[in-house]
């Protein structure tokens, strides 16, 4: 059975990168343009890994994470960030709230995405 990844990012380039990288792979990539859309998909489906952008219009990454944890406290969430201190400040908030997640630094090429995702999902 294919592992399912949900990529929540307002950037088309990022979403497409995942879609193209994991084409014909043991992973199935689903994408969402916003936090709201991502949560809707999460309510309908179950995912092995959620890739989350931090800086998004309307609902940002930390807010989305809060809702994700309400829906599924166990799902693996990897936040892709550019490592800027403003984002770290946001992440600090999330850590203090006890929300679990991992951080990955952008940008990643398809080899790195493969490597990362396969090692996380033990493929």
């Amino acid at each position: 059975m294919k592992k399912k990844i949900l990529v929540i990012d307002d950037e088309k380039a990022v979403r497409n990168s995942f879609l193209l990288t994991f084409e014909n792979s043991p992973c199935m990539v689903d994408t969402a343009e916003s936090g709201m859309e991502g949560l809707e998909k999460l309510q309908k489906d179950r995912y092995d890994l959620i890739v989350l952008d931090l800086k998004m219009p309307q609902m940002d990454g930390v807010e989305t994470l809060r809702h994700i944890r309400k829906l599924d406290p166990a799902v693996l969430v990897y936040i892709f960030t550019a490592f800027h201190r403003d984002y770290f400040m946001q992440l600090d908030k999330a850590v203090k709230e006890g929300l679990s997640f991992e951080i990955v630094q952008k940008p990643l090429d398809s080899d790195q995405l493969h490597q990362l995702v396969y090692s996380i999902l033990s493929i």
Partner: protein
Amino acid sequence: MRVLKEFSLSKNEACLVNIVLIVFAVAMFINGLLMLLNEFIIVGIVQLILVLFSLASMAVLRMTYKKESVIIADNTAQTSESKSESVRDDASALEATLRRLKAEIYEREKRETLIRESEERFRSLVESSPNSIILTDSDGYIRIINKQTEVLFGYQRHEIIGKTIETLLPDRYRANHFGYRSDFYQHPQIRPMGVGRDLYGKHKEGCEIPVEIGLTPIKSQDKLMVLSTIVDITERKKNEEKLMQKNEELAKFNEELKSRTAQLIQSEKMSALGTLIAGVAHELNNPITGILNYSQYCRKNIPSDGKLAEVLDDLVVEAKRCADIVKNLLTYSYFSTGKNEKTTDVSTDLNEIIKRIRNLFANLLTDVTVHLSIENNLPPLRIQPNKLQQVVSNIIKNSIDAMENQEKKEIIIKAFRDKTYCNLVIEDTGMGIKADDFSKIFDPFYTTKEVGKGTGLGLSVSKSIVEEYNGEITLESEVGKGTRFYVKLPLNN
């Protein structure tokens, strides 16, 4: 007069001579007359002459005696007429002498009182002086000292008077002091001693006393003596030292302030630069992700032979470089903006990070031999895994670039712990770094690589991260042979 007095006769003696002469004259006169009557004419004449001679002698004697009485004021020789007059003269002479003597005694007493008072004044002046006063003679022997000298040098008067002045000097100054002393006697004048030199006295117990000395030559009974006034400057020295120390501290503080100000200006500049870089890099981040992954996708989906595959390979390489640059710019800006709040650090396994890096650089490390020597049971480090990865990967990237034209391509990675640090040593067989560049190698944007090969941020980012975790990063290098980087990360930060 004195001769006369010595040969003069007393009153009785004169009478006796007169009587003898009279008897002699009468006898001669009678005898002479008898001789003439008996016709001894010559004998009679001679006898009569002798009578005349006797009379003459008597006359002379009488005259001489009278004269003597007048001239000599001698009571015993006085004649009865001059006696009362002489007594009167004597009395007045005596009175005059008495007056003169009284006046002399008075004068002398007055002088003595003045001298005594002056001496007392001198003594009390010398004794009450808050400074040590020493009077030495021309041979350097101590003659007078005051109370303060006893206090300052610890000697009793009787212990030091009669000793040479060198007794009060530390041993190391004694030899030269004889010379100084004789110089002073050749040009005696009031002056401070040892201008420009630090002067020390020696206490009876051996300790040294910093002093200032004034010298005054004093002439006494044609002999030259020296009055030394000695001021104990221990307190002043202490204060001077304190002041000097304070001055040094102040100078140091000033320097520090200057350097802090420079640092502040620099960090302000870097902070502004960091903000600008962050903005640009962040905006480029997502498009680069797209370019990179799109080109990789295209490359993957076309046949490997042909011009197109080649161009796409190049595109991937260049896009990866862009991605690296952006990544480093962002990390750099994160540190250079200063207020980098610490995120919660997790335990990171160094082995895991090195594995990740080897995978990451797999295609770059194909012709490089990597030796790993990681100590067993290395404790997990309290550092963000991505940060540690960045520290190590920037160094390794540097090593890979440095070995590009080297025949031998080897990277040795060692990790071991000591009491307080986890030590990571990364060694390469690259072209090495010149000693001049050692200090600059960690500066942001400093690079020795050709244009387009590096941003000069990699090692500066590594250093920033290591320092954020209170660690250290240093290097050793030999041109043509290779470079060794040492990373020390505290075990409990």
